[in-house]
C-alpha cells in the first residue's frame, strides 16, 4: 500500500518534470535554452518515473533493467543534445 502510494507520487512528480521540460521547449527563445530544458528536465522526469516503476518491479533483474534504461537514455540524450548544440554553434559562427 505504501509502496503503491510512493510509486504514484514518484510517477506524478516525473510527469510534472516532463511537463516543465515541454513548456520550456515551447516557450524558450533559442535552441540552446530549449536543449537545456529538454535534456535536464526530461531526464529527471524519466528518472523519477523509472524510480516509481522500480518499486513495482517483481524482481531485482527487472529493477536493474529499468535503471539501465535510465542510464542509456541519459547517455543518448546528452550526446544528441551536445551534437545539436555544437552543430548550431558551428553554423552561426561561420562568417
Amino acid at each position: 500500500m505504501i509502496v503503491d502510494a510512493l510509486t504514484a507520487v514518484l510517477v506524478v512528480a516525473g510527469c510534472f518534470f516532463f511537463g516543465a521540460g515541454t513548456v520550456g521547449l515551447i516557450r524558450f527563445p533559442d535552441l540552446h535554452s530549449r536543449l537545456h530544458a529538454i535534456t535536464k528536465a526530461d531526464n529527471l522526469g524519466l528518472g523519477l518515473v523509472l524510480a516509481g516503476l522500480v518499486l513495482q518491479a517483481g524482481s531485482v533483474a527487472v529493477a536493474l533493467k529499468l535503471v539501465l534504461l535510465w542510464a542509456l537514455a541519459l547517455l543518448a540524450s546528452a550526446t544528441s543534445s551536445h551534437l545539436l548544440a555544437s552543430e548550431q554553434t558551428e553554423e552561426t559562427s561561420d562568417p
Partner: protein
Amino acid sequence: MIGDDMTLLDGLLAVGLLTVAALALFLPRRSTAVVLFLAFGVLMAVAWALLGAPDIALAEAAIGAGVTSALLIDAVAVHRGHRTERNPRTSRALSVVGTLLGGVAAGALTFVLLGLGARSAPSGGPGGGPGDQATDRVWESGVDHPVTAVLLNFRSYDTLLEVAVLLVAALAVLTFRGNETFPAAPTLPPVPSLLDLLVRTLVPVLLLVVGWLLVSGSVQPGGAFQAGAVLTGALLLLRLSGWPGAIPAGRWLRPGLAAGLTAFLALAYATALLGDGWLSLPADWAGALIVALETLLTLSIGLTLAVIFVANQEPTHTSPRPQRTSALSARTRRRT
C-alpha cells in the same frame, strides 16, 4: 463490446492518435510532419501494448518510431536548404483523399477484426476461432510463445512472403541509385568524441539486446523482426559515426540481403521434398529450425533496413550523373 473495458487512458490515447495523425497530415512544414510521425509511432506502440499485443508494440517501437522515422528525418534534413514548404493546393487535396481512403480502410478492417474476435469468444462452439485454435496447438509448434508459433510455424508462408517483400524493397531502393556504387565508407567530418563514446557504449548493449530478443521470441514477446530492427539501429549508429565496415558495400551486400529469404526458401523446399509438405515443420526439429531461421532472418532484416536508409542518403560526389545527361542530350539532338 467495445465500450466494456475502455478506460480514460484508452480514450485519451485514441484521441491523441487521431489528433497527431491529423496534424502530421495537414501541417505545412515537412520537418514538423516528420516529428509528428515519430510521435505517432510512439503512441501506436503504447496502444498496441495496452491492447495486449507486446510483440507488435515492440515491432512498432523499433521499426515505426525508430527506423522509419530515422529515414524520414534523414530525407527531410537533406533538403533543408531547399524549399521546406509543401505546395498547399495539391497536397491539401491529396491529404483529404488519403484521409478518406484510410478511414474507409480502417473502418473495414475494424469490422472484419471485430467479426473474427466475436467468433473466437469463449462462449463459442468447440471449434473456437482462429486464436483459440492457435493457442491450443502451441505445444506441437516447437516454441512456447503463441505469436512466434503462428508467425513461423502455422502461418510461415505469410512470413516468407513478408521477407520477400523486404528484399524487393531493398533491391528497388538500390536500383534508384542508378549507376552509382553503394557508398562503402561514409564521408563525414571528424566525429565528436562524445558520439564516439556513445557508439562504443551503446552498440555492444544493442547487440546484446538483438541476441536476447531473438532467443526470447520462443517463450515471450520477441522474435526476428524486432531483433532485426534493433540490429538496424546498431548498424546505423556505427555508420553515422564513421565506422567504415558497418554496412558491407562490396561482395557481401547482396548475399547478406538475400540470406534470410534463401534460408526460408531452402527450408520450404526441404520440407516439401523430404518432409510432410510445404513448410510443415516436423515436431521434434521445429524449435531448432525456427531459431536457426530466425537468426538468419534477423541478419537479413537488419541489413535490409540499414541499406534502405543508407541508399537514400546523398551521393558521395556532387557532380551530375554523366550517363543521364548524355542520354537526354542525345535524344534532344535526334529530335532537332
